[in-house]
């Protein structure tokens, strides 16, 4: 019953975010409807960064406690973060095509987002090939902590190097409200996805342990 209520709230918030982005926000005068991509792009970009920090935090948790539960959080956050980072690149590219007339520009923040996605992909690929769960957790934790050092560069890149990427552009009040609703809606939805994936990984781990005990 409780889970049912939580899922209803998550679905409601996500629906509110999508409806606000589609109907509440006014149409931007220069870019038209294409500007609405921002209401997906900003939340997924924020979640891509947040998930990487969550990965590094879970990695630190594992190294400190040696409990595989931390590694399940790591894997769940990594997979969802990888998806968000990929969506950031796709939605950013769509927006850039309309705004700048090109699908891709080597703007520092875009470059940093791509690098973050490449690190996510590398960490998940390396982990996928390691069978021993504790080795997998340890290798992933070290790489993610090292990779998290890239996150401040992502955030600071625009300010340091002044690329094409807009920093806090002027927005109408209704656009700001829509953006806020989108960020909250997407954050709750992806948080829920991470929790569900983490539960699934816990069950997989338990099943594997039971199988080992039965065989051995």
């Amino acid at each position: 019953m409780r889970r049912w209520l939580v899922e209803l709230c998550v679905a409601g918030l996500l629906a509110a975010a999508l409806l606000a982005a589609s109907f509440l926000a006014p149409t931007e005068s220069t870019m038209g409807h294409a500007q609405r991509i921002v209401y997906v792009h900003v939340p997924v970009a924020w979640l891509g960064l947040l998930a990487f920090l969550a990965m590094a935090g879970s990695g630190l948790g594992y190294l400190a406690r040696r409990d595989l539960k931390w590694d399940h959080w790591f894997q769940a956050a990594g997979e969802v973060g990888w998806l968000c980072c990929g969506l950031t690149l796709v939605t950013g590219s769509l927006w850039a095509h309309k705004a700048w007339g090109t699908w891709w520009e080597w703007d520092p923040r875009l470059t940093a987002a791509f690098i973050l996605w490449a690190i996510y992909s590398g960490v998940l690929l390396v982990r996928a090939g390691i069978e021993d769960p504790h080795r997998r957790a340890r290798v992933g934790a070290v790489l993610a902590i090292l990779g998290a050092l890239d996150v401040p560069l992502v955030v600071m890149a625009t300010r340091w190097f002044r690329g094409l990427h807009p920093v806090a552009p002027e927005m109408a009040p209704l656009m700001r409200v829509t953006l806020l609703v989108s960020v909250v809606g997407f954050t709750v939805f992806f948080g829920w996805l991470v929790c569900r994936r983490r539960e699934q990984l816990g069950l997989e781990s338990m099943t594997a342990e039971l199988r080992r005990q039965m065989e051995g």
Partner: protein
Amino acid sequence: MAAFWWIVHKDLVSEFRSRSAWPAMLLLGIVVALLFSVQMDLLPEHKRQIVGGLLWLSVFFAGATVFERSFAAERQDGCWDAMQLLPVSPSTVFFAKLTVNVLALAVLEGLLIPLFFVLSDLPLMAHAHQLALIGLLASPALAAVGTLVSALAPGAGKSGSLLVLVVLPLVFPVMLAAAECTRLALENRIDDAWWRWIQLLGVCAVVFVTAGMLLFEYAIED
């Protein structure tokens, strides 16, 4: 401190006797530089734009062969087990391995910078002191990430060969800053922008060396 010098000495003597990693690194550097130079049949102003990136990519690719071998020799004949029995802290081992890798990169850069000077016909040697500063900051940053990740390779098993997929994006800020510094130096623009990239190189070196020192203990647990 004695243990640090002992490990550095051991690795250098071992390399001098076996000549296994450094000649391969230098040869790969030369081959990569020659292959890149094929793409440099351009006007001088266009060459100035790309030569920095090609130079530091050559350094990275050739240097990666030495990083990979940092711990490979230790794993043979139980050397690593013997080293772990010694009363030496993991950070001492990390700094010793890092020092050897930085020395290897210094030798590599000493070869590749004149080679790019010859191949590109750009006045790289006129900016030798600026390139030396770039190398001084970029080498520890590159070597710190390379050393730490190579220490993970035995634990990663089959995935060990995939670790290079993580190294390149991790060192991307270093590569970008080194390439931009080289380009600006070649354009005689030693201005605020040049110093900002140098600062980024310095920050990368401090962050990666510190992270390597702190994480090395967990990387070598196998």
